């Protein structure tokens, strides 16, 4: 489905996610609706357990909602079966997580190009090299992730999320277990790519300072959006 530049990259309509059954049910997401335009940088903040990760998983097509609709780049995710969803993910969505972002048996280069490899595409050596330079991990391409520092590992996973130039980049507390200096560097990197390739970036964070770098901040509480403020247009 050709998506014109005018359509929003992300449309979420009345999204609910309920865990458990009977008296133990938890509504992780409670009628959430939102729209994100192409090229926006949105941070999501909220206390622990408020449903941030759940939302991100559903946006990324990793998890399915209990009810509601998610449309990414004009494609409604619920219409895709598991396989097409996986293919859609590897082409359209970049995911960055807090922990264990890399596959320990693959080299840095292989980790970096994993979505391409899974797509049976040959990564362009020059492009990989350029990306590695940009990430500051040139020279470590043949190392295993275990041989890298935490900051370096996270940069690799960001590189991986960005390599295919996905329309939508989703990051779940990417600086969660890094020190201040490394955190700052990671955020810089994300911002740089966001600016350079005008990708849409949705970032979950605890850190108000990081949140404030976005153009728009969504606050979640008990599975509901309680605040949606534009910081800078």
């Amino acid at each position, binding site marked *: 489905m050709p998506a014109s530049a005018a359509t929003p990259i992300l449309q979420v309509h009345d999204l609910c996610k309920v865990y458990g059954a009977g008296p133990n049910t938890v509504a992780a997401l409670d009628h959430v609706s939102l729209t994100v335009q192409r090229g926006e940088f949105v941070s999501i903040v909220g206390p622990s357990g408020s449903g941030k*990760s759940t939302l991100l998983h559903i946006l990324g097509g990793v998890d399915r909602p209990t009810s509601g609709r998610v449309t990414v780049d004009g494609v409604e995710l619920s219409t895709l079966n598991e396989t097409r969803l*996986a293919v859609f993910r590897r082409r359209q969505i970049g*995911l960055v997580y807090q922990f264990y972002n890399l596959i320990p*048996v*693959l080299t840095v280069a292989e980790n970096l190009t994993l979505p391409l490899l899974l797509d049976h595409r040959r990564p362009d050596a020059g492009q990989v090299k350029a990306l590695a330079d940009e990430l500051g991990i040139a020279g470590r391409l043949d190392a295993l992730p275990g041989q890298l520092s935490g900051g370096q590992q996270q940069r690799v996973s960001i590189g991986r999320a960005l390599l295919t130039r996905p329309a939508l980049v989703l990051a779940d507390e990417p600086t969660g277990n890094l020190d201040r200096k490394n955190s700052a560097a990671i955020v810089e990197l994300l911002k740089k790519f966001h600016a350079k390739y005008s990708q849409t970036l949705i970032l979950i964070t605890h850190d108000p300072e990081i949140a404030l770098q976005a153009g728009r901040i969504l606050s979640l509480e008990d599975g509901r959006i309680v605040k949606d403020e534009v910081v800078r247009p």
Partner: protein
Amino acid sequence: MNVLCKLTLAQIRGSKSRFVVTVIGVAVAAAMVAAVLLGCDSVMDAMRRGAIAELGDYHWQGSGSAASAQAFENSGLFARFGYACTLPYSAQPDGQPVSCMGVGGDAWRMLGAHAVEGKLPDAPGEAAVTKDLATVEHLAPGSALTLTDPGTGGSVELTVTAVLDRFAVDNTFVYDGRQPVYLYLGSIARDELPQGAGSLYFWGAAAHPDSRFFASVQALEQRLSLSDASLNSWYNTTLLTWMGIASPTGGSSLRGLINWLRAFLLALIGVGAALMVSNAFSLSLAERRRTLGMLSSAGATPAQKSDVILLEALFAGLIGIPAGLLFACGGLAATFQVLRPAFGLLTRRYGLGDLNLYLVVRPFWLVISAAASATVLLLSAWVPALQAGRTTPIDAIRGTREIQLNARALRGGRLFGKLFGPEGMLARKNARRSIHRYRATLLSMTLSVVLLVTASAFALYLERSYAMAHPGADYNVTAAMRCYSTTEDGGAYPLRQILQSPANARTVREQEYIQWGMLTLPSSRVGEQTADLGWQYAEDNGMGLNDPPTYWAQAGPDSDTLAMQPYLLVLPDEDYAALAGQAAAADGSTIDCVVINRCFVPGRDGGMMELARQMALRPGDTMEWSFNAMPVTLRVAAVSDNPPQNLIQTWRNPYTMTLATSRTAADAVFARFTAETGSYCPRYFNFYYQSDDPARLYAELTSLNAQNPIPNLALTVTDIQGDQAMIHAVTLLVRVILYGFVALISLICAANIANTVSSGMALRRRETAMLCANGLTPRGLRKMLFLESGIYSIQALAIGLPVSALLAWFVWRRVMRIYYFRFTLPWGAMAAAAVGALGISLLAALPAMLHAARHPPAEDLRTAE
């Protein structure tokens, strides 16, 4: 219930499929141990029964004076004691010669006397006769028998009470071919033995054949030998060996071999099982890291943490070992059942006593099997248990660090990636995370493949070779009669008439052949390839070109004639006419013949090859045959490029030519030779028999050898069906044992792989979720899991099939030296190996694949662990 016990049970419930697989692995290992121990014991038991049937059920045998025998009998060392001696009576009044012996005490029973009719003699004046004598003399229980003593002229009156098969007492006495009659002996007291009684033998079975018994017997013998110079004694070493007892006189090498073999098999199984078990428990440990860390922070001692693993081993053993023992008993019983017909046939053909295998389950060996399995289980679980004991709270917080990844082990594999895509590459790397475990499993898989294919090849080739040696199979006994006499006509020997119509043959085919003197023919008539191989033959055998004894060229290759050795088959006239299209000339100086233009010869590579168009002869060509100084001309009537299979011969020397002529033509030449030279030709006859009772026929023909000691005559008899039964039994044994072993190794491999793959899955949940988040499709995930397990079988096949093909070729080279047959790979076995290995992989991957289908990856992304 103890909290640790409860925890362990909960953990087991949590990883049910891995536990089940571990239990299966333990059961298979226990089954293999029990199969080796019980199998060995059952085989020993069969051999023991064989030894008893052949030699008798005694441990010690002596000979000497009656006084010595009595001293032994009264020594209290023996549970059973018996004796026998030759008696002077030798003939009946009608002159039929018999040998006569007295048998007493437990000798009847110990030596296996069995009354076919009547009951064994148990009072003086009673006698037993053999079945053959009973037939000849028309004796039956109740008949009266009078024996005379040629020395004294006296005689004894006896009553026949039993008709017997011959029994093991015959092993000791020599009768000079005369039928024995067995008399009842009441006692060995000297004054009760008849006058003139000959050498006295005695047999004893010990109550407890142990070293004390041996020492006592030896001491007693030493004491008695002071007064009895003729005293002599032997142990029944064969029986003692199969009983597993070391006798003072020999048999230790066989016992050593058996023990060594048993120890080797047990070690092999032990290592395999230990590998599997320790793998299972290190996986279990990896899964339990978090729990153990928590236990640790709650104040559990190292021993308590170890207990979590050891308890799991205990539970696995409690279920797995008894199941394995049961399985082994069932498997052995079934195997013996399968082998029974083949061994039954052997037993009947060779009269080897009862060689049949019956399952013997002695509690002793069951206990040993269980103990050995439990020991292996415990020892293998020990190291993971110790590691569990060392788990600290920090390990739990840090999460799982399975093992240090080996960057070198993860490299390469481009081919695998090319063949199976990115999933293949991932699978390969995952499988090789623990490179030692990977290699060990791969090695056992490869070994299974190689064993399976090579064993099948061996069995196949053995049968093929035998089938080639006896094409047509319209006979089951053959005899070859070769007469070298020059003063007598071999063709007219009475033996030939006997061989032409033995009593026990249904059909007889006689095939005479002449192999005498040399043929001279133009060298241009030799096939190109033949000439080539001929040069090689001459070189290989160090022959000069003018070397007189060679059957090779008389002159160099420049000469236009050369000499060859003829092998002339004499066919019945009508067979010859059918082959040649016309009758053969029979004037005694010219022989018409058909060239059998195909044979098997050693090839350039040392193996045998089929040589087609050996000669370039054409109908009408003639060859000069130096029929021992009486020249004969061979005239080619026809050339058969594709002769009947049974006329094709195998030659060492490619310059041997197979020809066929007719009976009339050959006889004319023999007649002329005798008329001109006054001497006779050597004559060679092969006889092919079809018999309903090949054993009888074989016995009948071999006895001719003893009865007709004619000089310059050789008679060899071959019992094809007996050989076939032997070959069949051998191949069956090879197949059953090796296939059984392969099946069990494969099962252990499967358990190992299944554990590795599903635990890997469990340990790498987040990692897998990451892959899915990055766009690995569900199908891709299943493919990766299958390949993670399949890589073992794919690699094992990739290595194992070529290796076993090579081994099969070597086996073929050995076997086809006996009889030539074309090389074929055992395709069936190779296909079975491929299907089996891939099936095992699929089976092993199934638990992980099912688990992946049930648990969507998103759940695993949530947690930090």
